[in-house]
């Protein structure tokens, strides 16, 4: 299946990755400034609402990263091209980081709104499950030495984990609805759209810059594992004691 030929790595500094990340960071600064300083106060939640300008974009992009990971897993299983394994590793790591951030933001938002740090909100709980599921797959990658097995197994596990996400969401939603009537803000009125969109693109570009750079790192490591062994110094090729002396 997977032809154990090392993936080629692009020469030179990853300029595009840095450019994307830089652009993303700038957009984030702009969007956050707008959201924090210029946007009007929300009717019921006051200033706490401003957390949404970073929370909602993080949510969209975390989901996007893990969806991309799912795509990479499928691509690797169907095509066997190593670059998909590198991208899978990168997308999962970035996705886990964003999801973890999402849980922290959600918790910080929950305290002033509902008075508790955690309230089993379906979206937040599903995100926590996603963090655990995909961290587990990253851990799996560390404990498997054979690169082919590592790639196949993490692709399989990523597919199972991703397919499970909607099921987890619906079961928690159902389970929670019997206990509480909490509501998370579903709609955001138009006065608040711009900072949200800017931050969304900000995190999007930053995310793709990070995935690109992380994938390069994974590719370099794969090269070391799959490439031909480096030649040894000449002296090591001459067996000890063989001097060619026949006297």
């Amino acid at each position, binding site marked *: 299946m997977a032809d154990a030929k090392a993936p080629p790595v692009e020469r030179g500094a990853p300029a595009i990755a840095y450019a994307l990340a830089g652009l993303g960071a700038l957009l984030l600064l702009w969007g956050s400034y707008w959201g924090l300083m210029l946007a009007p106060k929300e009717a019921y939640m006051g200033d706490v609402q401003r957390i949404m300008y970073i929370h909602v974009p993080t949510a969209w992009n975390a989901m996007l990263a893990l969806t991309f990971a799912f795509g990479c897993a499928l691509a690797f299983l169907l095509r066997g091209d190593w670059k998909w394994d590198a991208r899978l590793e990168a997308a999962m790591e970035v996705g886990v980081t964003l999801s973890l951030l999402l849980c922290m933001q959600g918790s910080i938002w929950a305290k002033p709104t509902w008075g508790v740090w955690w309230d089993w909100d379906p979206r937040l709980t599903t995100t926590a499950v996603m963090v655990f599921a995909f961290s*587990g797959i990253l*851990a799996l990658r560390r*404990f498997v030495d054979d690169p082919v*097995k590592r790639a196949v197994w993490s692709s399989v596990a990523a597919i*199972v984990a991703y*397919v499970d996400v909607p099921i987890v969401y619906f*079961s928690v939603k159902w389970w929670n609805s019997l206990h509480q009537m909490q509501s998370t803000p579903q709609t955001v009125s138009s006065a608040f759209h711009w900072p949200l969109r800017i931050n969304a693109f900000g995190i999007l570009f930053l995310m793709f810059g990070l995935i690109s750079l992380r994938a390069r790192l994974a590719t370099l490591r794969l090269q070391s594992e799959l490439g031909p062994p480096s030649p040894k110094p000449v002296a090591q090729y001459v067996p000890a004691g063989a001097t060619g002396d026949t006297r």
Partner: protein
Amino acid sequence: MHLAAALHKDVLLQWRGRAQVVAIFVFGATSLLLFSFAIGPDSAALRQHAAGFIWLALLLSSTLTLADSFHSEMEERALEGLLLLPVSPGALYYGKALANWAQLSFLGICLVPVMVVLYDAFTTRFLGLVGIILLGSAGLSAPGTLYAAMTSQARAKQTLLPLLLFPIVVPVLLASVKATSLLILGDPMGQIRSWALLLVSFDLICWSLSGLLFGRVVED
């Protein structure tokens, strides 16, 4: 046919290792006892949480069952030998998964009397309880067998299996606990059916997906 032969092999392996099953049952029963210490000697509270505890005990016991299920395949490179046979990997998977399902269901049913005694959690709807145990165990067995196949070949296998399995089976845990709780405490609004339906959907999706993917997991 192939599936019957694979199933026969796995059931035979489990029968030969039945001392292990007794040990796993003792582990599950001990867990049930220990969980009660988390609540304290409050009979009403214990009864309310009995469903959660029995499913946690079964979940923890399942890691032992599943990890052990590939033990014989790892010895003497038996797995490679099996794959050389003209049998589809799917048959191997379903044979193993069905045998694991049987063992987990058996464990679950054996833990019920322990739960009844320790938590005063009796139910007259015994058939319903057996049904939920069967559905829940199926939900644990399908992904569990797939991940056991992977982790039995990796390092740190004892840690990896629960790490991979537990997040995936959250819906099984939720639905089984809820349904069992309704059976024990009463179900005035007839919600058990919905939870059972959730379990059935999860089982259908998992059993088909895992069967499809198993071949890639064990190939060389």
